[in-house]
């Protein structure tokens, strides 16, 4: 029981004081559970980052699930997940209630928001560069990227592009493995 309260409390604090989403939380989680509380090892954090890549969903929730599951089974995962979403819900509910998005008429505020959007755009370009470095490995990847991008522009739903990528990847890898097996024979 104590462990559940600890998980809930720690993740509540982490979510409350980390700005910038799940990626920004990983070092804070490491600091809290490895260095301060000493309940996880450094290698657990490596596994945690691996899980965030494998399971669909938000990095923050994945990380919370992982730490909770390691320390106290599925109940721990639940406690940590609730802890990590509760601060967001409280803060955003207050903001949404006080600050209706559609009725912005203040010129200065509009301009400030436009600048913030430009800044977010900069962050996305930076992110795309980082992901792109992992994605483009050989020259074959360039026409492939252009093809997928054209699919997006032709009005294909993003959902189908995600399904297409994953489905094709799975089939392709299975096919290659089968070929290798046959050659060995």
């Amino acid at each position, binding site marked *: 029981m104590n462990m559940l309260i600890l998980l809930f409390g720690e993740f509540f604090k982490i979510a409350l004081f980390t*700005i910038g*989403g799940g990626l920004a939380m990983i070092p804070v989680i490491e600091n809290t559970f490895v260095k301060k509380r000493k309940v996880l090892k450094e290698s657990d954090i490596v596994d945690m980052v691996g899980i965030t890549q494998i399971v*669909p969903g938000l990095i923050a929730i994945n990380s919370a699930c992982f730490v909770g599951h390691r320390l106290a089974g599925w109940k721990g995962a639940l406690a940590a997940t609730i802890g990590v*979403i509760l601060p967001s819900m409280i*803060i955003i509910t207050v903001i949404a209630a006080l600050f209706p998005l559609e009725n912005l008429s203040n010129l200065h505020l509009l301009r400030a928001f436009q600048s913030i959007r430009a800044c977010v755009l*900069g962050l996305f370009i930076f992110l795309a560069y980082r992901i792109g470095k992992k994605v483009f490995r050989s020259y074959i990847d360039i026409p492939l990227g252009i093809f997928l991008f054209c699919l997006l522009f032709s009005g294909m739903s993003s959902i189908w*592009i*995600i399904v297409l990528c994953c489905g094709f990847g*799975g*089939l392709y890898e299975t096919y290659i493995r089968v070929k290798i097996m046959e050659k060995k024979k």
Partner: protein
Amino acid sequence: MIAMGLFLQFMKYGLLCFGGGYMIIPLLYADLVQKTSMLSPESYGNLLAVSQMTPGAVSVNTATYVGFMQDGLFGAVAATVGLCVPTFILCVMVLSFLNFYKNKPWVIGFFKWIKWAAFIMILSAIILFAQISILDLSEGVKNIKINPVEFGIMVMAICLARKVPFTILLILSACIGWGVSYL
């Protein structure tokens, strides 16, 4: 009833956002702005900016905001829980069975290729944000202008993203925008 719809809608997003929450951006854009035109592109951008600036996971913030706008507190809870439920269930399942599936070829292929989807999704988020920040589309598609101030802020954000915490960048750019509006 709206809350139930929100719950299912966000469950779908929760299943689809691999490798982090920003994958939700084009999905939510298609549903909120293009299909139902509940929000204008600018308001959607503001919503995402607010989600970035407030503490916590960015897409949890977005889900709460969208839910609250549609159905008050009920909607906020329904959307957020809906977003988290698939992740939670899958995560607990994967943690229990991971060692068995880790080396299956279709699993390996799946995760090799998911990077492509992530890359394309972030590109579409870039196009979306370019339209509502640095590009001036007020005079039609043929006469696109680039807002110099916003363009400068974007370049600054790209250059400093590695070194400066993102919150500081956001506050800085808000101040620049606020200041420029008085000129």
